[in-house]
């Protein structure tokens, strides 16, 4: 260092060194003057490369090897790209922006983007003064412009465009971001929900398996969901075989059939899914069923139910299911069919094989009396008869099974009781029906005398004399009795009729119908529509 004395100038000379062994690369960190950045206030700073662009450049491989990959795919892709002249820029780490975080989490954040063209025509050097007074010049490797990053939420381009369209209408600009936040929350919840829902639905289905189905509404609700199909279908199958509640099978079968059986065409009249006939056989039976299904509407279901009740349980179950499906497929219009089916199924008569047309007539007439609906009794009877016979014919093996499985149903209990009663005229009930459903059990308890089976009756010979004596009958068709029933539980006319069997009350079928109608008029019970069937009930 030499200092020259000059006239009015004082100069000092410094040596300039350009160190060769620089392992460090120098860069410029440039801030915008408007940001008012003061580096001396920084207590702590962290910096790293922003590698988010790597994904874009990476051209992610779907999967290396094994599933989903093709042999030689990479080479082929490259050859293709070359052919079309597509040049993909390499991902250079050196050129990636920096992310600078100052003063920890709560502090500022900056993004430093490399400025291009800095070192092309001129070189920048950093001159620093060393303690020995000489200057050291370091070449500048790169120039990064650091801009502060917004911490507050911003709208995306699409959202911004939307808001721009509404700018004249929106007064409260704070609400814009609030709404966005709500939307995001919802989206997050939705995703969770979907996951949960599917799980729930499956659980629901499983749960329904063994329960007594009372409401078809649930079925309807579930039927709308797609994933129910497969599981439902499977369940449907097992259902026919095992004894489960029909409602479920009904819905499921329908879906299953419509979706899974390619053999099935779109619901036509003739199709009747029938199809799911386990017991093979007769097309006739399946044909008949749809017919029957068609003919029965609303109150007409009573007779039908009885008919079926006379059949073996499984038979009826099967048929009913088939019918239901048939009905469902046939018509959305007659939504009542399904409830009918359900009802029928509930009122299974295990023992019954033959129906007594009397009873069926009664039911029909009763229904008409009560509901004032048109019927085609003869048709029904005929249909029923044939159906019944065909059914029995088609299922030779079932009766034995039936008797075994009857115990589960109300009818079974009833028939057993009756048998027991016949043996023990005192009216003691020996067999309560081992595994009666709870409602059945309740009903048994409710009724003073033994349960009376469906009028269709069994083939078991029972001397009428031993049973029906009006005075000693257990069931009197009185207003009191009807009231009692209705208070306890909503019932349809059919149910009521079953309570007051002709054999018990000693009244003829016509009489029963009339009396019951009168009683009901007097009582004027409230009506409720369950499963598309009119139920009466009283609340006191």
């Amino acid at each position, binding site marked *: 260092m030499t200092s020259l004395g000059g006239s009015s100038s004082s100069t000092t000379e410094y040596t300039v060194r350009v160190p060769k062994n620089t392992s*460090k690369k120098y860069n410029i960190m440039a801030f915008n003057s408007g940001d008012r950045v003061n580096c001396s206030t920084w207590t702590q700073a962290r910096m790293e490369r922003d590698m988010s662009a790597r994904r874009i450049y990476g051209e992610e491989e779907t999967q290396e090897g094994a599933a989903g990959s093709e042999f*030689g795919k990479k080479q082929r892709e490259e050859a293709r790209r070359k052919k079309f002249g597509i040049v993909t820029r390499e991902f250079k780490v050196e050129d990636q922006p920096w992310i600078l975080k100052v003063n920890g989490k709560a502090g500022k954040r900056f993004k430093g983007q490399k400025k291009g063209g800095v070192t092309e025509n001129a070189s920048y050097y950093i001159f*620093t003064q060393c303690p020995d007074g000489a200057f050291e010049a370091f070449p500048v490797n790169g120039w990064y412009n650091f801009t502060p990053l917004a911490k507050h939420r911003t709208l995306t381009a699409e959202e911004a465009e939307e808001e721009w369209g509404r700018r004249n209408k929106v007064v409260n600009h704070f609400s814009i971001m609030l709404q966005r936040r709500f939307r995001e929350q919802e989206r997050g919840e939705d995703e969770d929900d979907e996951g949960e829902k599917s799980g729930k639905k499956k659980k629901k289905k499983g749960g329904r398996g063994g329960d007594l189905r009372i409401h078809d509404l649930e079925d309807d609700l579930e039927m709308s969901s797609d994933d129910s199909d497969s599981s439902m279908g499977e369940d449907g199958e097992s259902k026919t075989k095992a004894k489960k509640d029909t409602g479920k099978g009904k819905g499921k079968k329908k879906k299953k059939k419509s979706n899974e059986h390619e053999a099935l065409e779109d619901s036509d009249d003739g199709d009747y899914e029938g199809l799911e006939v386990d017991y093979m056989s007769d097309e006739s039976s399946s044909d008949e069923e749809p017919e029957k299904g068609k003919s029965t509407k609303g109150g007409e279901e009573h007779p039908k139910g009885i008919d079926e009740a006379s059949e073996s349980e499984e038979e009826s179950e099967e048929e009913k299911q088939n019918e239901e499906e048939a009905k469902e497929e046939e018509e959305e219009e007659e939504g009542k069919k399904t409830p009918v089916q359900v009802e029928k199924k509930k009122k299974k008569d295990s023992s019954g094989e033959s129906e007594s047309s009397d009873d069926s007539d009664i039911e029909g007439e009763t229904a008409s009396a009560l509901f004032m609906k048109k019927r085609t009794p003869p048709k029904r009877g005929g249909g029923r008869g044939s159906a019944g016979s065909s059914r029995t014919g088609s299922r030779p093996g079932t009766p034995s099974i039936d008797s075994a499985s009857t115990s589960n149903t109300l009818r079974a209990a009833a028939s057993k009781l009756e048998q027991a009663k016949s043996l023990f005229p005192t009216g003691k009930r020996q067999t309560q029906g081992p595994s009666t459903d709870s409602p059945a059990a309740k009903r048994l308890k409710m009724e003073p005398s033994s349960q009376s089976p469906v009028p269709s009756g069994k083939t078991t010979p029972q001397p009428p004399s031993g049973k029906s004596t009006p005075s000693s009958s257990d069931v009197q068709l009185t207003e009191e009795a009807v009231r009692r029933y209705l208070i306890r539980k909503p019932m349809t006319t059919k149910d009521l009729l079953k309570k007051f069997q002709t054999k018990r009350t000693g009244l003829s079928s016509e009489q029963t119908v009339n009396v019951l109608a009168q009683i009901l008029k007097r009582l004027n019970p409230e009506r409720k529509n369950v499963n598309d069937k009119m139920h009466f009930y009283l609340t006191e």
Partner: protein
Amino acid sequence: MSDKTEVNLTGVKQSKGVWLVKVPKYLSHQWDKATEKGEVGTLTIGKKQGKTEVHFSLNEELTALGALGEKDASLQVPRDHPFTMNTVGGQTMAVFSHSEAGEISLEGMVVHRAECRPVVNDNYMKLKKLQIQETTKPQRLSQQLEKAITTVFKPVANHDFNVEYEKKKKSDGKMVRAERQVVLDMLFSAFEKHQYYNIKDLVDITKQPVTYLKEIMREIGTYNSKGAHKSTWELKPEYRHYQSAEEEEEMQTA
């Protein structure tokens, strides 16, 4: 998140002021030729009538344009370079460095900006002219030839490459059908690596005649004629076992 490097803020804390100097390319070239010690010149800072003047003077030995040691008298890089000093002008500029090891440190704040200008004289002008001439030269050059080239493209009865190929074919002979089980083994191990294969690739791998191979493939696999993996063969689902690491040998049929 990748590891963040803690920035060494000592430079800033000490408020080290640095100068950012813009230096012409040729000068930086000359500086690269400096000796081990790195001395390239002298910087003269003087105060003339109140104004600060900075002047850089290049060392003698670095003025030669050519390689070091060569004294090309004709063209020399100018020696005198006055610096033009500018203030930073409100813009905050800091200098940070990062090393090979990934350490980042803040070296200091820029307090002055300067531009290194050469003194314009004839020498410099000549130098510049040379530079321009070099840069304006086109990268590709069309050159007219006097004689036609006869050495490269001659009509040939059969190209060399072709001849080789045929010889290879002859020597290798036709592909022989191996045992079915052996082929199946080869196929299954191939399908372990990738799911979709072209029939040509399979032929290449197994060295079996095409018809035989197709027969076997039809038995254990399916052909995709549409979709993402067009015209490729893949194993039938029952043979596939991509999730677990189980060998497909279990699934092989005898």
